Every structure is written in structure tokens, then in C-alpha cells.
């Protein structure tokens, strides 16, 4: 895939160029922490998971086929790793405790002027509401929602990452977006509803 510079770096790494791998880590490491954070909602654990993802990438470099976009390959490793992390028993209790802390905000408690994006208090509340929403979504919906809404991947790429079909992704993203519409209603202004 000549148009994907990351794929070229990955091929160079397959040929033994460690600097190419470093470039990939420097380019995507930070985004990967953010991606993992959407699943575990713990900064230190998100950093560890992101490191795990790149260690796996380092180990499994030989399996990469240049016909696939590098980002798809990376997010597949990351999604599987994060979903496995969520399935671990020890996480269940911790998540339940976090979910109680991250209950959806009461609209009456929000400060005035919620339509002002510059307001840090509102931004923090919005961040908390999205985290609470993600915590309530089933695993696959969460992964599809994060990939579509927060990482900006197109449906066909999400299907490749989650190893499913485009119609399945369409359904997952739709259900998660309907849930988001209910959870984020307190933050929606009249202007938001006409912004297509």
C-alpha cells in the first residue's frame, strides 16, 4: 500500500529497521493511550495497555500484510487487547465502582452557559458523561462507538478492525449513537440539533 506511509514504515521494520518502528511508536503512541483510556478510564492503566499494544505490534510484525492499512492493523491489536482487558474478572468490580462514580450528570447541576465550548467545567462534565456512557455500552458497541465517533474511522475500516461486516458495524454504531443521544441530551443546545 504505497499511499500509506505507516505501511511503508512497517515494511521497513519487517526488514529489520528498528528506527521505522520507533517512528510508528512516536507517531501513534499518544493516540493509543487515548484509545485505551476510552476502555479502562484509568490513565496509568491506559499507558500500560498502549505499551502492551506496541509490544504486540513489535512481536507480530511478521504477520502484517502491506495490503492492509497500518492503522487498521494497529487498532485491531488494540481493540482485541482492550476488550480482553475488560473481560478480565478483576476488572469487573473496579468498573462497577467507577460506573457508580461516573453516573450521568444531573442537568440541573450543570452551570449556566453549557453551550459555551470554552467553559472548562462543562468540558469536564461532558468528558465524564461520555465516560459514563462508554462504561454502560456493551463491549462491541463501545469499540465501534470509540472507533467511529472518537477515532474517526470509516465503517469499512471499523469492520476490518472488529473483524465483522459493514452492516454489523452500522447497527453497532447506530445503537451506541442512540444511547449517546440520550446520555448527552443535557449538553445539547438548539444550535447543536441543526448542525448537520
Amino acid at each position, binding site marked *: 500500500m504505497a499511499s500509506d506511509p505507516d505501511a511503508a514504515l512497517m515494511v521497513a521494520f519487517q526488514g529489520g529497521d528498528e528506527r521505522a518502528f520507533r517512528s510508528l*511508536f512516536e507517531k501513534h503512541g499518544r493516540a493509543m493511550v*487515548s484509545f485505551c483510556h476510552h476502555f479502562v478510564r484509568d490513565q*496509568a492503566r491506559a499507558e500500560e495497555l498502549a*505499551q502492551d499494544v506496541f509490544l504486540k505490534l513489535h512481536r507480530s510484525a511478521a504477520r502484517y500484510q502491506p495490503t492492509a492499512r497500518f492503522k487498521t492493523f494497529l487498532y485491531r491489536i488494540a481493540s482485541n487487547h482492550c476488550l480482553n482487558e475488560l473481560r478480565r474478572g478483576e476488572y469487573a468490580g473496579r468498573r462497577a465502582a467507577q460506573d457508580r462514580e461516573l453516573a450521568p450528570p444531573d442537568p440541573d447541576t450543570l452551570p449556566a452557559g453549557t453551550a459555551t465550548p470554552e467553559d472548562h467545567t462543562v468540558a469536564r462534565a461532558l468528558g465524564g458523561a461520555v465516560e459514563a456512557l462508554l462504561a454502560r455500552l456493551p463491549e462491541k458497541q463501545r469499540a465501534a462507538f470509540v472507533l467511529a465517533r472518537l477515532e474517526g474511522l470509516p465503517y469499512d475500516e471499523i469492520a476490518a478492525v472488529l473483524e465483522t461486516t459493514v452492516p454489523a458495524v452500522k447497527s453497532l454504531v447506530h445503537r451506541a449513537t442512540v444511547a449517546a443521544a440520550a446520555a*448527552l441530551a443535557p449538553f445539547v443546545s438548539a444550535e447543536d440539533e441543526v448542525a448537520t
Partner: protein
Amino acid sequence: MKHVLDDLTAYLDGVLGARERAQVEAHLEACDGCRASRDRLTGALSVLTRLPHAAAPSAAFERRFYERLEAERRGRPERPGLRDWLTWRWAAPALATAAVAAMLVVTTSRQRAHERALAEHLDLLENYEVVASVGAVETPEDAEVVAHLDQLEGRR
């Protein structure tokens, strides 16, 4: 009238085909309920664009990663399969050489055992020049026959 709720997100994401898109738009013109749903979804998508950026990784994130990578490298082959390949590259000829040597040892030792058996009977051959000169004694059984030639001759 078939509602289009299930297609609204795909519609807003611009992933519907031209025909489906036209059907959804025609329905939205006529259905207040689906229009309200579309507006709620549009509002949520708009709010998500205002989501604050995730916190930056800690200062130790990168250093810690390279430490882990280095630790892992010490515990596994430098490149996938490289150690195995190096091992077999040298081990295979060595094993082949050892196998050939073992076969030679076995063959030689069997041959020597046979020669030792003949040697034990050499003293018998000294008295039978005719037999020895034709090289007819090759096995211990031959030597046994030679040892009793006098008896055979006696029967004649």
C-alpha cells in the same frame, strides 16, 4: 409508512447509497417523529465534537515502553525466528556429521569383531597351506571346517 430510525445514524454519517438516502429524506419530510430522532442524533454528534482532548501520556510513558521492549528482547530472539534459524544452520550439519560418524563406528566395529574371530583361528591355518593359499577362509565357520580337515580327510 415505514419509519427510518435504524438508518438515521448511517444517513447522518453519509454512508447510505443514493437510493437509500433519497428514501430517508423523503420519509423525514413527512414524519415528525423521525425528524425529532434525527435532531437528537445530530445534537449528540455535535456535542461529541466539543469533547475535551485526552490527557497527554506521562513523561515516563515512552521511556518505560523502551525499557519493556529491551527487557522483552533479552528474553526472546532478536528477530522472529532468527535464533532458531541460526541454531539449525549450525546444528543440522553437525548432526549429519555425527550420524555418519556413528554409522562408521558401528560398521567398523562389526568388521573388526569378524576379523578378531578369524585371528583366533589363524594358528589352525598354519598347518593347512593349501586352504590358506586359496583364501577360502573368510568366516569363523570356515575356520571351524579347516580345524577339522584332518577328520574329513580321515573319512575319505
